[in-house]
């Protein structure tokens, strides 16, 4: 399949280590935030979301942190696995929920 994110920021981690991917969002009125994973040749896959009335939410091996003061979002992946290698996008939902704005993305490489 085609490559996604040829010139994106890259994070390289060792298998088994924890990964932290950061994102700065743009609109202080956004109230819903989502992390997506995109593998080469595929569409974005939902990972986890968080609403603005929360500052932390945990899923299976993933945690999202939201800091509204500095408009910052992070995704933490515990015990990173080779299958986690992909491009990760943060996204924010604005304007009453119609329009989702994606960030630039971060490429995660997991070294075995």
């Amino acid at each position, binding site marked *: 399949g085609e490559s*996604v*994110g040829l010139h994106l920021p890259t994070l390289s981690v060792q298998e088994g280590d924890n990964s932290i991917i950061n994102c700065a969002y743009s609109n202080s009125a956004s109230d*819903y935030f989502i992390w997506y994973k995109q593998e080469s040749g595929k*569409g*974005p896959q939902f990972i986890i979301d968080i609403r603005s009335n929360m500052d932390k939410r945990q899923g299976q091996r993933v945690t999202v942190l939201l800091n509204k003061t500095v408009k910052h979002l992070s995704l933490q992946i515990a015990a990173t696995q080779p299958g986690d290698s992909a491009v990760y996008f943060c996204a924010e939902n604005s304007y*009453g*929920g*119609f*329009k989702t704005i*994606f960030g630039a993305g971060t490429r995660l490489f997991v070294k075995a």
Partner: protein
Amino acid sequence: DAGVTQSPTHLIKTRGQQVTLRCSPKSGHDTVSWYQQALGQGPQFIFQYYEEEERQRGNFPDRFSGHQFPNYSSELNVNALLLGDSALYLCASSLRRGTDTQYFGPGTRLTVL
């Protein structure tokens, strides 16, 4: 339970031509959004359809138009194709106008020569 499906997978057109891309939403979803993803970038919102109407539009020219059918499937039409329209076109479906989780299809890769 079928997820979001899109057709065709790949498409090659020449400048000035017109193209129609198709999307079937995830079972039970009533809202379809379309995105354009250029190589190396995040998806850019084109527009969203709910109840067969365009609810909001991103910063795309009128050459981009769409339609939603009573069964919630959708089409994206692009007229007068430009080289810069070459991209991966993604369809996402959700329930209730996108305030719930959006699920994406695999996309249609459009190449304009």
